[in-house]
């Protein structure tokens, strides 16, 4: 299994994943480390500096994110000028640790895939930093919030820039930590603290898979570097590759909230809205997709794992969409949507070389429009006194025109309105799915329809229909207003990106750009002509919109959610019983096992130990009776000893 093929033989790898052959970074690329170091330094400064940095902490945090973005942009533009073969740059910072058989360097890898992610993370991240200046203006722990955001940006950049799996793991855990800190940022709310813990624990399940995969790589390839593994991916048996692939998928499921580890994402909406936008919509949750696409050289040799990825993706795609239909909490509805959209990306990643580029494409456009919508939702909440229940909204389009318009951009993008960014990316994914398997394609198509339904429902309940602002019980009525410029400007930028994001597909640019990393697929015609398929997709979307219009837009929306609803709605409101399933399948058996072990430990093991102690002290209890304090008793013992001695002497001399 560890017999390695020479790197030369692996040049014919288009069907087996691309070999990573980077050149040593020079010039502007040698600044790659600064992209990570800037936000990291910002986080360190803000956390260590304490209250002294309260006054300007948010500005510093934003500045470091923008700084990283500028460097990333310069590097990206310079990368565009390189030859296609020279677009992979590696930078060896230092030897992380070296053992007898395993040397791990602190290596960065900057290639087309990383470059897109860097732009997405730092770009969207910078916008969300700016937005947060306004959104968190009244929070007395704002400086800490920005420190955590910076920490997240640094960890996420580490994740996408790492040159080996251990580096990815470092960033992976870093974003997990930042996610935990930010979900539980309002730790005074028990629900937030619980949600943070839930996210952390479920992510740990995925991390176990990830770390096991890394161990397996170390055993199989003797290295965790992409270069080594991609060059030697023939050296391992298919079973090993499948195992690594499935373990990586487990890690990706945890981070990207895919079934069966999807449960934490909806609860994670307890965090501040910018966090939901940045971490739980645009960037961190897509890390799983990144991981699978980055590991294309493994998955291309692991057909079983790839099939499982498709299954997971399809299930999650529909699962999230169904949840999104029933939620009244605007953020949870968007979270369900996020889950579903990541399912689309996973689907692309599972489809192999043909889908990788489209998955990344959808990932980026989704980053734009979902961040846009989350920030829009935050803006709405800002105006509605932090109420998240859409049934309390209605007719907000007049009072919040900018929020409404930008949100509409995102809405049109996500449902795939022709011309908007989501249309291009989703269309390509569904088309690729049909090429692969008709059923998968049909599921993706159905998902698109449901997406249209729930997003229209969300849109209608929030911005149209009648006003339902006033609380009949308390008489409290919020006074919605447009958010300040510091919040609306990022909305406008993201809205614009949601509209024009599709430009990346112009002339198949993104596919060609990513080809050195993910390989170039032969073109397969879908079973029906592409244009017809596009028409069908648009039609399905139109049907979804229409259903929403007739069930929500044309009827009175009750302020309190009706209880006599169909079982499907009930199930969707309960997250399709995801938590119940987890409780039954994992938590309850674990708890009962733990209780059994606890009582075993308490009674059997402790019993043995304490039994020894009790026996000793019981013996001592008996023996101490001889120490009665009467000198005459002691003298009796002495005399007895003397007699015994005399008897012994007598016996010896007999």
């Amino acid at each position: 299994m560890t017999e390695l093929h020479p790197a030369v033989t692996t040049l014919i790898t288009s069907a087996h994943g691309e070999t990573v052959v980077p050149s040593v970074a020079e010039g502007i690329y040698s600044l790659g480390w600064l992209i990570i170091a800037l936000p990291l330094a910002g986080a360190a400064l803000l956390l260590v500096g304490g209250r002294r940095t309260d006054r300007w902490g948010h500005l510093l945090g934003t500045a470091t994110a923008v700084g990283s973005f500028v460097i990333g942009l310069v590097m990206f533009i310079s990368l565009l000028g390189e030859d296609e073969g020279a677009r992979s740059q590696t930078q060896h910072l230092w030897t992380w640790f070296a053992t007898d058989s395993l040397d791990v360097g602190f290596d960065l890898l900057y290639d087309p895939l990383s470059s897109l992610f860097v732009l997405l993370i730092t770009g969207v991240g910078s916008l969300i930093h700016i937005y947060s200046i306004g959104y968190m203006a009244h929070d007395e722990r704002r400086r800490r919030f920005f420190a955590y955001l910076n920490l997240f940006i640094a960890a996420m950049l580490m994740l996408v820039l790492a040159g080996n799996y251990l580096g990815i793991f470092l960033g992976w855990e870093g974003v997990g930590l930042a996610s935990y800190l930010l979900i539980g940022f309002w730790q005074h709310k028990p629900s937030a603290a619980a949600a943070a813990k839930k996210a952390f624990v479920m992510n740990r399940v995925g991390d176990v898979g990830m770390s096991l995969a890394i161990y397996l790589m170390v055993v199989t390839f003797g290295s965790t570097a992409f270069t080594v593994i991609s060059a030697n991916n023939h050296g391992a048996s298919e079973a090993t590759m499948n195992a690594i692939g499935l373990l990586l998928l487990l890690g990706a499921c945890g981070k990207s909230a895919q079934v069966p580890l999807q449960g934490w994402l909806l609860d994670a909406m307890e965090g501040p809205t910018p966090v939901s936008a940045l971490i739980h919509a645009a960037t961190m949750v897509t890390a799983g997709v990144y991981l699978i696409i980055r590991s294309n050289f493994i998955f291309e040799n692991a057909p079983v794992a790839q099939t499982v990825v498709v299954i997971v993706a399809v299930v999650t795609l529909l699962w999230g969409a169904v949840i999104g239909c029933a939620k009244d909490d605007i953020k949870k509805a968007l979270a369900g949507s996020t889950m579903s959209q990541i399912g689309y990306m996973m689907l692309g990643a599972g489809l192999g070389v043909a889908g990788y580029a489209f998955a990344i494409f959808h990932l980026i456009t989704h980053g734009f429009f979902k961040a846009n919508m989350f920030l829009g939702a935050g803006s709405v909440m800002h105006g509605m006194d932090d109420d998240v229940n859409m049934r309390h909204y209605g007719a907000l389009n007049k009072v919040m025109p900018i929020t409404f318009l930008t949100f509409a951009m995102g809405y049109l993008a996500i449902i795939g309105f022709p011309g908007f960014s989501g249309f291009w990316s989703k269309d390509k994914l569904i088309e690729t799915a049909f090429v692969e398997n008709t059923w998968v394609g049909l599921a993706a198509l159905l998902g698109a329809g449901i997406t249209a339904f729930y997003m229209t429902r969300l849109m209608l309940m929030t911005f149209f229909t009648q006003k339902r602002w006033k609380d009949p019980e308390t008489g409290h009525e919020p006074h919605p207003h447009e958010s300040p410029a510091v919040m609306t400007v990022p909305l406008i930028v993201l809205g614009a990106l949601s509209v024009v994001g599709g430009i990346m597909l112009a002339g198949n640019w993104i596919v060609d750009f990513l080809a050195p990393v993910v390989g170039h697929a032969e073109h397969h015609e879908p079973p029906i002509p592409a244009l017809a398929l596009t028409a069908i997709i648009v039609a399905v979307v139109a049907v979804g919109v229409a259903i929403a219009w007739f069930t929500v837009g044309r009827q009175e929306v009750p302020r309190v959610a009706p209880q006599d609803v169909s079982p499907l709605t009930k199930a969707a409101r309960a997250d399709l019983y995801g938590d119940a399933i987890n409780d039954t399948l994992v938590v309850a058996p674990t708890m009962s096992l733990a209780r059994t072990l606890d009582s075993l430990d308490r009674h059997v093991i402790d019993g043995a130990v304490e039994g020894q102690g009790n026996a000793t002290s019981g013996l001592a209890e008996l023996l101490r009776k001889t120490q009665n304090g009467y000198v005459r008793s002691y003298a009796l013992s002495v005399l007895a000893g003397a007699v015994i001695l005399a008897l012994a002497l007598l016996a010896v001399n007999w």
Partner: protein
Amino acid sequence: METEPYILLSAILFTIGAVGVLVRRNAIVVFMCVELMLNASNLALVTFAKANGNLEGQVAAFFVMVVAAAEVVVGLAIIMTIFRTRRSASVDDASLLRF
């Protein structure tokens, strides 16, 4: 003269003294019994001195007497001190050092 009867007498007196230490409760009587044991051993020493035609036994008996005198002085002083604080000369009453 025979040696054995003296030695046997010495042994019997010694044993009586030992038993006396065990059964009497008055510290002073206990002390007397200790003296009885010392005297019994003295008798043996003097007897052996004669049996062996050597005065060393008598010297040893002499030293025993001196040591016994010193012991009695200190011991009785201790008994007095205990009696002063506890108003009792019973060896059983001074039994605080126990479980």
